[in-house]
């Protein structure tokens, strides 16, 4: 069967080739579109390094198959406003919000979502909302400051 499946990725329309319907969004973004900000830390939904926004909600791209995303809008760090990226990076520099940087794009996506007022529960529980993103270098305390300054 040949259904034309459209994904809106970072504002552009992409017709998903058949071969990708049953494969991970993560691989499609990285291998086909070279969106290398999206990282694979675990492939099991545990670490958040692969976080993207799907219709504005943060999701693990390692857990999503291409075929279920018809007409959805997907945003990676590359698709965020330059403003937000620069501001997040500058705050990270100021507070030491990263070391190895492998978790950074996941946190950038979460910060974009929080900045959009994404969470219903409000800022106070951003710790809990961010608990799905692992930073093995352990700079959570610094990231808290980054997020607080950002919001």
């Amino acid at each position, binding site marked *: 069967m040949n259904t034309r499946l459209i994904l809106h990725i970072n504002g552009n329309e992409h017709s998903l080739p058949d071969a990708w319907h049953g494969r991970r969004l993560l691989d499609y973004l*990285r*291998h086909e579109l070279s969106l*290398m*900000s999206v*990282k*694979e*830390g*675990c*492939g*099991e939904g*545990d*670490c958040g*390094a692969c976080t993207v926004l799907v219709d504005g909600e943060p999701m693990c791209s390692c857990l999503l198959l291409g075929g279920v995303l018809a007409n959805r809008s997907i945003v990676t*760090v590359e698709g965020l406003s330059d403003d937000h*990226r*620069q501001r*997040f*990076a*500058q705050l*990270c*520099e100021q*507070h*030491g*919000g*990263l*070391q*190895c*940087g*492998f*978790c*950074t*794009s996941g946190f*950038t996506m979460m910060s974009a979502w929080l900045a959009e007022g994404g969470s219903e529960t409000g800022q106070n529980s951003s*710790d*809990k909302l*961010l*608990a*799905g*993103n*692992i*930073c*093995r*270098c*352990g*700079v*959570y*305390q*610094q*990231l*808290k400051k980054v997020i607080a300054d950002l919001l």
Partner: protein
Amino acid sequence: MTLNTADFRQRALTNARYTADLIPQNAIVAGVARSPHPHARIKNINTAGALAIPGVLAVLTAEDFEGIRLGHNDSDEPVLTTVARYVGDEIAAVAARDQQSLLRGIEALQIEYEILPHAITIDDALDLPTSIHDSCTDNITDRFQAARGDWYEIESQVDIWVDNTFETAAVPHAYLEPRAAVVHVKDDCLELVCGSHAPSMMADHYRPIVASWGSQLEIHTPAMGGSFGAKWQHSTHLICLLFAHRLQQDVAIVLSRRDDMIAGRTRAAMRFKMRIGATATGKLLAKETMLWSDNGAYSLHGPAVMRAATFRADSLYRFAATRSEGQLIYTNNIPSECFRGLGITQSTFAQEQLIDELAKRLNIDPIKLRKMNTVCEGETTIHGWQVGSCGIVDCLDSISNRINQYRRNQTSATNNRYRIGYGVAAFIHCIGNRGYDQHFDRAYVKLTAMPDGRIRISSGEVELGCGTVEVLIKTVSHELAIDPQQLDVVLGDTAIGPHGMGSFASRTSFFVAFAAEDACRRFNQMAQHELLQNIEVTGIYQPDNVVVPDESGYGNISAAYTFGTHGCCVRVDSYTGKVSVEQYWAAHDAGKIVDINAAEGQVIGGVMQGLGYALTECTAVDDNGQLLNPGYLDNRVPTFADAVPVDVIFADTFENSGPAGAKTIAEQPIIPVAACVANAVHDAIGVRLNRLPINPERVWRTLNHDTNS
């Protein structure tokens, strides 16, 4: 990687490229068939079925790597093995055009095993009727002994002994970026791209192997998503190199998280039997240690870690006599490897709990007891370490003040369900180790004037997020009076060099700062009579007051020593056994602090890792050696929700032998954490948790006198 002042910003903008981001579109993919058995001889491998699969290009087995071993001094790890020694051991490798063919190829390999008796615990290994390596019949692969002082004389002066047995768990490094490697074929040179904290040392080991195939080798390290001591020699490198050589095409491998946890490395699990003797007034006199270290299946840095764990922590105090013995034991577990803090993290867990115990028994404040007994500036420790600057007393005082202040303002008191407790622990650590590799305890930094007028700083050392790049740029821009924007830094690229030892023992910033100063001196000298574009100079630093320690580990191994004290307040839920850390304080003597942000970041990050080690992380292995928790969900590393407030304090010290008075801060912050938490838990519930991790189940069982704890 080429870095400059904008590098940190590039990582923050997520523009930095890690190994897996650099795989060419048409690269061949490689994968590994792993043993499902903890100990088994491979009787036969039939590769025909795999090779018949369209898309599968080649298969490698042990024969292809005959005579090649991985390891530091005691190289005992084959690239592909004929005897599986742990679940996950590499048996065969497959190269294919795409991932699907690769998986089918691995599946189609027919491997016949002859199962051998196996050992998952140290005791099992010592009783095992067979040996895990032919070369080691009793499974004890290394032994170490050190004795100082007149033991019997000192023993007779002891009024009080405290003793206990302590066990630490094996934990994975769990860096966020799984192991990956790419090999580019460039004429007769193979270029290996992979994250590593010691690329030059790795190249030294791999080059003769690759040369025997008729090829050259360079290693290029891109941005790295964490190593913590793990990313060093690994069979995946040689597998990709040989495939690339044979197929003359680029080859890549990326481990899944599961495979990375199964066949990555771990911090060695250890068991200590330790006792400390003192006078009735609290003067420490004697310490005796017996250590059994679980090496896992292969050695890597196992011997170095075991030795360090056996005796190094003693140097914090003025013991008059010590007796220490260590054994390194092969088991059918995941091979252990260096992990932030080497073995000191483990031995500090034992030592600092005994000191705490002694303080309780003598009814002396634990801070006071430590202050009475720690070494001081200008002293030589019992193991021959010449202590330069020493801020341990400052650190102890700061922690004492913070705890007292916090206690005064603390409203939540111990009640029937929740018990509040406070703990402290202290440590000593070196900033280098001449004993690690006596031929190469130095660093080089090269300065090259580039045709475009910029200056390139290159070094074989790498950036681990501790600020190596920062140190290089600051030093060079200051010494050459040049705008930092005009500087580029290339680290860990063996084609550009110069040789570097890599990040061991928290040595990097200390060593490169001096080497960079020397390079600048040479540069400025040459600039007086040479055209700028002709200048290329290499600076060198080798600490001159250090020695190779003797057989028993005696000698001044490091140019300076670092100290610190941690404190924490915990709340133990007696209904569930859960330990929550309410507040954490970390005081460090790292010499003069060059970059306060980076230094604080190292401390906070290290404390977080230490809390994972203390409370939740472990490799759970069943009786058959199967890893039960190869992922972040079940092997729980700290998350945002576990982040505790860490108050960082730096002692005001100046190290005369250090660059601009600095010492270093990298491994240190993880060292005392587990002991600090254990002491606080003891304070809260009155029972000592002498096994890691201190998880709810263990605490609950301890509280309920359940013998399975």
